[in-house]
């Protein structure tokens, strides 16, 4: 037990990796799901333990060196309040969605290949968890590719229901690879200047050796560093699907299998956002990135456009899965706006919205997955009158919709409260107005769906359907319930988020 405890940061990544390999070999005949379920639950337990360790430790960080090679020579894993929180989000959502996936995925792909699905599922988790926990910029790239490659395949698995999944996946592959390569190129540029790949070490070298001289003595360095940052920013914006680099997201989310959509929507972009926050605040440093380079201006414009355009495009969709995908683009705008503001409240809003939106959108995608499971489609006309047929599922969907609007007593309200206060604190009244306009548009698109669900009439000749199977319903209700619970009692989530924000800005606990 002591051994496990000591190697927790490594195990959280290595366990799903090894289990993924094992699953691909022996995971036939339903065993694959059991292996995946066991692994995700174990990872969830470990991430809870890690979060507790971090919050209790005096320095608020837990460092782990791979193979005892000291950093910056070896790869170091660093856990602080921010990534401990993100680890928890990823592992929690993964556990709940795995529970849900069993029935859902069995109806969507060839049963003989189920074990490959679960293997990919675990590899995807490995990547997401690894990106979150690693303290090494290059290692981050490797893990980014692990998660991305498995994600492309997972999206393509939606082909049995709709062949477009293949096109969506190849599209995602091209753009995702460009993004990853931009990031890699950025790292290479910085490596040229600093000679280091460790995030903390790069920051140290930049602030102590490069920055003091950058304007006068070292014009060469200046160009290299700037271009490196620009490449990294664009690459990560792509991974995060930040407007206008969101092109891959709507189709990928729409045509992927239901449980894959739920997992990706609530974890993949969140991890992308985390990586961006990490690069801005830990690697580059907020003073350099915002005060000198005005990255925040670009980010804020992107975020504002994401909120307005994402929500508006969502309103115009008739395929509800696509509607949710576009709404995710808008929500990514809120998250980006939060960290672009660069103050404690803004970062808190970002971190808490990572969590709240994961719950909300995950629950909604799962509810929609049930609709697809029962009716075979997710178009608006297929949801007509389902309020009576699938009362629990639709209640969960509605709860999520209220969260997207930011109605009080839902988790979405808590995020928006922090976000709008942060806007006012920085004197960014126009951004606060955009947030509120975005909420109004969210009201419109949620309303459109809710009206169909509760006031629409199901066609007379439609086949009879019954409520979802229990193993799909319980996880859905769990996430929907959690999104309400964390709206009423936000003390835990806001405490963790505030701790993470304060840690990043270095203003003490």
């Amino acid at each position, binding site marked *: 037990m002591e051994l496990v405890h000591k190697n927790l940061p490594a195990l959280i990544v290595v366990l799903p990796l090894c289990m993924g390999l094992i699953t691909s070999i022996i995971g036939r005949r339903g065993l694959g799901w059991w292996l995946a379920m066991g692994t995700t639950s174990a990872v969830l337990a470990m991430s809870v333990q890690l979060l507790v360790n971090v919050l209790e430790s005096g320095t608020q960080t837990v460092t782990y060196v791979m193979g005892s090679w000291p950093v910056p020579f070896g790869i170091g894993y660093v856990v602080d309040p921010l990534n401990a929180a993100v680890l928890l989000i990823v592992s929690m959502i993964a556990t709940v969605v795995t529970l849900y996936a069993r029935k859902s995925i069995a109806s969507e792909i060839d049963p003989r290949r189920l074990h490959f699905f679960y293997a990919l599922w675990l590899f995807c988790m490995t990547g997401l968890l690894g990106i979150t926990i690693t303290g090494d910029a290059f290692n981050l790239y490797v893990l980014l590719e692990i998660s991305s490659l498995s994600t492309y395949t997972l999206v393509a698995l939606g082909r049995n229901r709709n062949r477009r999944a293949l*096109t969506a996946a190849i*599209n995602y592959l*091209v*753009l995702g690879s*460009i*993004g990853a390569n*931009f990031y890699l190129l950025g790292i290479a540029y910085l490596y040229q200047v600093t000679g280091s790949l460790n995030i903390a070490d790069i920051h140290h070298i930049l602030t102590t050796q490069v*920055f*003091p001289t*950058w*304007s*006068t003595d070292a014009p060469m360095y200046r160009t290299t560093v*700037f*271009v490196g*940052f*620009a*490449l990294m*920013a*664009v690459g990560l*914006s*792509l991974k995060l699907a930040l407007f*206008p*680099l969101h*092109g*891959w997201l*709507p*189709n990928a989310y729409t045509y992927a299998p239901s449980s894959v959509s739920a997992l990706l929507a609530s974890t993949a972009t969140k991890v992308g956002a985390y990586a961006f926050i990490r690069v801005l605040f830990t690697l580059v440093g907020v003073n350099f990135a915002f005060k*000198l*380079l*005005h*990255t925040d*201006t*670009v980010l804020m414009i992107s975020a504002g456009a994401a909120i307005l355009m994402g929500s508006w495009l969502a309103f115009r969709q008739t395929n509800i899965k696509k509607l949710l995908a576009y709404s995710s683009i808008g929500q990514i705008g809120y998250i980006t706006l939060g960290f672009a503001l660069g103050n404690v409240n803004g970062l808190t809003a970002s971190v808490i919205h990572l969590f709240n939106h994961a719950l909300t959108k995950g629950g909604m995608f799962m509810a929609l997955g049930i609709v697809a499971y029962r009716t075979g489609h997710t178009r608006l006309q297929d949801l007509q009158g389902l309020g009576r047929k699938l009362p629990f599922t639709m209640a969960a969907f509605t709860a999520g919709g209220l969260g997207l609007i930011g*109605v*009080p*007593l839902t988790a979405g309200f*808590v995020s928006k*409260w*922090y976000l*709008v*206060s942060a806007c*006012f*604190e920085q004197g960014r009244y126009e951004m*606060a*107005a955009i947030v*509120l306009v975005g*909420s*109004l548009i969210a*009201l419109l698109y949620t*309303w459109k769906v809710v009206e169909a669900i509760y*006031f629409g009439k199901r066609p007379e000749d439609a086949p009879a359907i019954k409520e979802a199977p229990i193993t799909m319903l319980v996880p859905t209700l769990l996430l929907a319930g959690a999104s309400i619970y964390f709206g009423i009692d*936000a*003390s835990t989530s*806001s405490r963790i988020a*505030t701790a993470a924000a304060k840690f990043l800005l270095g203003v003490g606990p």
Partner: protein
Amino acid sequence: MQMTDFPPALILLAGALLIPAAKGRLRWILAFALPVLALADAWQVITVGAESHVPFLGMTLNPVHVHPATPVFATVFAIMVLGGVLYAFNQKREHELPAACVYAGGALGVLFSGDLVSMFIFWEVMTLGSTVLIWSGKRDDSQGAGLRYFGMHAAGGVMLLMGIIIVVSQRVQAGDPDPLAFRHFESMITLWSTLGWDSAGMWLILLGMLVNAGAPPFSSWIPDSYPQGSPSGTVILSAFTTKTAVFTLMTAFAGVEVVIYFGLYMAIYGVVYGILENDIRRLLSYSLVNQVGFMLVGIGIGTHLSIDGAAGHAFAHIIYKALLFMATGSVLWATGRSKMNQLGGLYRTMPITMWCLIIGGLSISGFPLTSGFTSKSMVVQAITDEAARMAALGQSHTYLIITWILFEAATAGVFIDACVKLTWFVFFQKDSGLRPPEVPWNMRAAMIGFAAICVFLGIFPGPLYAILPYQGEAAEYAKVVYSVDHVMLMLGMLLFAGLSFFVLLPLLKRTETITLDIDWIWRRFIPKFWHDVATPLLESLDRAQKTVLEWLPSRATEEGALPVQVRRRLPGTWAVSVPVLVIVLMLLTYLVVYFWLLPRGGA
């Protein structure tokens, strides 16, 4: 949380969960017991003066707090729920009772909110409850009206929330020890000195509250949505939204001059549109706007007596307006009609309903010996007192004199509207041939009970005066309320108004008409404009753009010579080329920003 500071709102909100679960008799026992329990709890909290502190997002909320105007509003809200439940007793509408509980619970919650955040939360709860209540009316246009209602209140809620956030962050910056407190905005009293960015928060809060009060240009939601409720639903609807807004305005913006003008506009607007109206329940909705206008005038004057008058008038108004809606609802229930030109001669078979309508009508016109007289005359007295005080100080008081004249004119107008006209066209005029039976016992009991309250408070206003915000002031006034000049002025005015009605009767005969209101702008004009003007305009622009972007370049290449069908269309979301182009542009943007926006001269 001990029993002494249990929020009364939660009792009703719990009811919304319990009532759907309960069946048969238990359902009604609950429906009657909950408002009684809530009233008992409210008074318990009021007498103890309890406070409660709930941590939320690092702030401390205070959902149990007693404002000066809380007792009178809480009392009448609880009475109102009881009366509404009694009136609805024979109606089988699944969603109506729970929705009414949510609605009234939200309203009660606002009354006891000690901070702006809980106020806002209960405010939104109220919006949700009332929207469902309108939908459950299931009349022709209930769904559309509910949707418009919800949109209007959601927009008002956004203004309110934005205002609250600005005010709270300003208070935090100013080092206020209790930044969230829901209290009077002293700095808003004079209008023109506070038009600036620093008061934007307070203005937004004021606007958000005015939306709920039905102030211009948002008045039309009341006549649009209330007539779409069921007979019993509309009775409940008439009581809470506008009066909660009156309460919050009274608490936060008493004495703010601009509120007077909003109030006057509403008082006149309600009368004018009421005279033109044919639908009995729409007519009452317009007179509701008129009455809330009177209360807003009282709030805007801001003396102790005028605040008392406004609060007392709110109490009296809730009772008689509910009575009027019950009576008209009974007519609708019995005949299925609500247009005046289709009704008439009902006095033969519905005498109890008729007498209740007359008592309600006399009360709304402020006839002596009814509750309207004892409450509204207080506001009138406050206007003249204030005018006299300012005259003595040598200050300009013309606006108060104009206020007084318009106020009395509107009073006369409402007598014509809601009393004489309504009774005449529904129960007398021609014989429509309808012989509906009197309504069931529970509807009659509710009406008679509320009529009794109207008369009781007209003769013995003491118990009402005793729970007003400034009881001392009101007790003084009680001595002069039935002075000869008050009574004579009122009687003379009302008799003259009644006479003029019958003289002008040929002009007032109602036909099938629809009255245009400001809401025409957003219900007809804007969609029409969009469809007939803006869309063609945009389309023509689109064509120009296409010419520049597609046709010209295509002419320049060899491909341009190909037939149109062969040319490739602009790629949609499926192509990779456009996103890649965007990626390159983003990279360029970053580089431009990094290299050109950099402050010169180094770190």
